[in-house]
């Protein structure tokens, strides 16, 4: 057998032999990924933490150690408190309203008829097109002057809204767009979860003459809980990193009404050249993401034990 291999290698020459050896070397195989991971993820993260303690002027390159000064500034600034409260409102809205609608829609669409299938498919469309496209579509639908939303309200003799251009309604508009965009994929996730529940459990419930109400809350929801918990964590994380829709539709405005933490970091850093403050906000985001990741991994562990 070894003869065979030797023969094959000779057949292909020295270059072949060399690469053949490399393919047996795990360090060679993982090297590109590890090197770039260290360079463009791990190092920048450490750099962000380090820089958050400095006041740093990117133009002159001058650095001044501030200790926790940047963090103190953030928590004392009305703008950042506004950003935090916006982010939390946004998160709670897409978490509770969004998740509730996703479950309803998933349970409703969990049938294999062509009509249900078509609705499943079209509701998933927002997930595959660019967030920029979604933002532009809703900028048009929600346009205060000529948008179809306001036209419909006018036709029904209801008060119109400034939507994403009004400081009262802008955050609400962003929330609507985010919920709409996430609804289909969330419902599909719920459907996948529902279909993974074994049929015999429902048959057993039927034999016990359990009501459909009772079946839903005592069988479906508990068995769906790993999926739901996973969705809670990913939705929360997406609320804290939501950037595209805000950048495209409102640029954080009007009057910081839609400024979320991810956009704030961008605005402070590349907009106002306040690198230190941006990094301090980034560190706060990092702590939140880390906490969410810990929750997620413990859930994933549980999920394995579940079945």
């Amino acid at each position, binding site marked *: 057998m070894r003869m065979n291999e030797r023969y094959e290698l000779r057949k292909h020459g020295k270059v072949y032999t060399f690469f053949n050896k490399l393919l047996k070397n795990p360090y060679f195989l993982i090297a590109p990924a590890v090197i770039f991971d260290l360079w463009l993820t791990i190092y*920048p993260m450490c750099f962000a933490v380090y820089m958050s303690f400095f006041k740093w002027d990117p133009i002159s390159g001058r650095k001044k150690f501030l200790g926790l000064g940047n963090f103190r500034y953030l928590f004392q600034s009305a703008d950042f408190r506004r950003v935090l409260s916006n982010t939390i409102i946004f998160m709670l809205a897409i978490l509770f309203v969004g998740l509730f609608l996703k479950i309803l829609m998933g349970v409703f669409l969990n049938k294999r008829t062509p009509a249900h299938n078509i609705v499943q498919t079209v509701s998933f469309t927002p997930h595959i097109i*660019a967030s920029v496209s979604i933002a532009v579509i809703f900028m048009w639908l929600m346009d205060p002057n000529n948008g179809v939303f306001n036209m419909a309200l006018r036709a029904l003799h209801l008060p119109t809204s400034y939507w994403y251009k009004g400081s009262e309604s802008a955050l609400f508009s962003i929330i609507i767009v985010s919920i709409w965009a996430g609804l289909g994929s969330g419902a*599909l996730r719920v459907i996948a979860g529902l279909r993974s529940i074994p049929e015999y459990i429902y048959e057993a419930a039927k034999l016990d003459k359990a009501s459909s109400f009772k079946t839903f809350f005592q069988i479906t929801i508990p068995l769906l809980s790993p999926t739901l918990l996973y969705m809670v964590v990913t939705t929360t994380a997406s609320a804290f990193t939501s950037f595209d829709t805000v950048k495209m539709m409102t640029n954080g405005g009007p009057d910081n009404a839609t400024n979320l933490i991810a956009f704030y970091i961008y605005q402070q850093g590349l907009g106002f050249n306040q690198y230190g403050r941006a990094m301090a906000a980034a560190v706060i985001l990092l702590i939140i993401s880390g906490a969410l990741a810990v929750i997620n991994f413990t859930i994933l562990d549980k999920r394995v034990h579940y079945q």
Partner: protein
Amino acid sequence: MTAKKRIFRILECILLVILFLMFVFPFYWTLITSVKGLYEAVAYPPTFWPSEFHFENYAEAWRYADFAYFGKNSIFMSTAATAILMISCTMAAYGFARFEFKGKKGLFYLMMADIVIPAQVIFLPIFVMYSRMHILNTYISYFFLFIYSGGVIFFLRNAFKQVPAELIEAARLDGASEFSVMFRVMLPSVKPFMITQIMLSFISKWNGYFWVQTLTTNDHIRTLPLAMNRLSSLSEDMISAWNVTMAGNVMLMAPLLILYIFANRQIKVAFIGNGIK
């Protein structure tokens, strides 16, 4: 009892139609606006079918947002970044799945850190590094970002691990070289998983906005989503030219929508997993 059932059936149909319209109407409205004239697009009451078709909106959007240039960038950058990502992540996943070596666990956790750390935390340090190295606005700086992905490596490692060890043993007994094991045994067995990842990667690069927005200071390596910036505040005769904006938006969405029409099942499975079948 049957009357009650019939009412439920009717309610179900109504709800299905409402949900259908909720997701189709925005796209229908985009498409219909894109072929309306400037004044018809903003007319009240709105028209649900254009009185005359203005396909020149597409030409205007194409010209105004320089779709030729950004489109070329989009195609080149999405394809090349996906190819680079797949090569290096397949190598790494194969290394992590098949071999035992010192520091394996630690290095694997290091790769997984990529999933946990949001891009919004690290883009500014990367911006600083890139500008110090004078590689801002270069294609290579974009590709660097996609040489690794914790998620893809995790996914492909699990796929490689499912290949039975007996299969590799059998190939070795037949005198297969490492090359043969890799290209004749391993890769063919994980092909469906790789196709999934290629699809997901291409879609996310095509739609990608954050990295090209934050790590560029001019148009050199910007892609189609960035071209929409130019179109989103377009106006003509003091009227917002939404028809042209929407024509541009249709052109941005079209490739993926066409892909989705033909491969919606595969795409749904790719995103959600097999449970949806």
